[in-house]
């Protein structure tokens, strides 16, 4: 039996599938170690070996048969998509399902398409808006804010997150979106001090923009650093730092406009 007639089909098809799979997985916020393990798991389940080079915006994948005689290489661009834990989890489950249940490449590819098509819209915009706002209000409480500050932060986050959804839905640059959202949220949360509503206006102002902190890129950067994927680690860290600077710029502009804090 040659590699052309195995259950995996041709190595070329497996390689193309794995390249696309890894690009989507990287795009939705998976760490490099997860990406490597998942791709190797799927390749091994078809009797092949996969070597992967992970760059910040591209994935370079080679699939080799067990004798090392047939080698196929593919390069795929990482799609510019948002971070999605749900997609991340479903794609990891697919790799386990392929390894445990012995799915054919056609079935694996079909399930992959289904996951990509359906997982992104699992939660409605309104649900996301409400949950993010409630989480930010809870952060305000954790930092010592009173009930009024929590209410103000809830309103500020709802307004900022709504604008974020609107701008990202129009494919406006993420950095500009973060600046605008930070400005809007900080201005609205300044109502606490502006109208002398509560006793902790500074906490309301400070926590109103926490939903914009790029926590996942920072964590992924550290994870990549631990596993010596230094290029990806540095790339993710710079991305996170740029977003943090944008957040700070928006917050500072809002504080300057409201004559509050350090200005």
């Amino acid at each position, binding site marked *: 039996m040659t590699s052309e007639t195995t259950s995996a089909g041709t190595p070329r098809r497996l390689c193309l599938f794995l390249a696309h799979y890894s690009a989507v997985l990287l*795009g*939705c916020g998976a760490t490099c170690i997860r990406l490597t393990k998942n791709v190797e798991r799927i390749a091994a389940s078809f009797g092949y070996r996969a070597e992967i080079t992970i760059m910040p915006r591209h994935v370079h994948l080679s699939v080799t048969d067990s004798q090392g005689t047939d080698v196929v290489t593919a390069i795929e661009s990482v*799609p510019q998509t948002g971070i999605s834990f749900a997609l991340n989890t479903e794609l990891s489950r697919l790799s386990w399902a392929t390894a445990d249940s012995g799915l054919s490449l056609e079935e694996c590819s079909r399930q992959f398409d289904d996951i990509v098509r359906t997982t*992104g*819209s699992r939660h409605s915009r309104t649900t996301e808006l409400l949950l993010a706002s409630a989480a930010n209000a809870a952060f305000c409480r954790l930092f010592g804010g009173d009930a009024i500050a929590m209410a103000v932060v809830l309103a500020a986050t709802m307004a900022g997150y709504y*604008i974020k959804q*609107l701008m990202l839905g129009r494919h406006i640059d993420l950095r500009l979106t973060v600046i605008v959202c930070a400005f*809007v949220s900080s*201005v609205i949360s300044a109502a606490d001090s502006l109208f002398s509503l509560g006793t902790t206006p500074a906490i309301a102002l400070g926590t109103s923009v926490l939903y914009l902190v790029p926590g996942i890129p920072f964590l992924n950067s550290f994870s990549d650093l631990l596993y010596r994927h230094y290029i990806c680690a540095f790339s993710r860290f710079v991305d996170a730092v740029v977003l943090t600077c944008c957040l700070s710029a928006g917050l500072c502009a809002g504080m300057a*406009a409201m004559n509050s804090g350090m200005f």
Partner: protein
Amino acid sequence: MTMTPIIIWTAIVALLLVIITADIIVRHRHSRHEHSRRIRPIDLATEREEFFITGDRLAAQEDDDDDF
């Protein structure tokens, strides 16, 4: 001079309310006339503004077509 922050705050809240109201109206009209093209006085939404399907290369190509 001390009134300036209040004026800015009020202006931003008013602008937000206008944006949100316009967006809701556009969505409502769009949901009622899903397959028709209508000229809107304020166009804040498009047919595909809901969500960008993660990893969907076809969607990305369609959006590129919109620009050209």
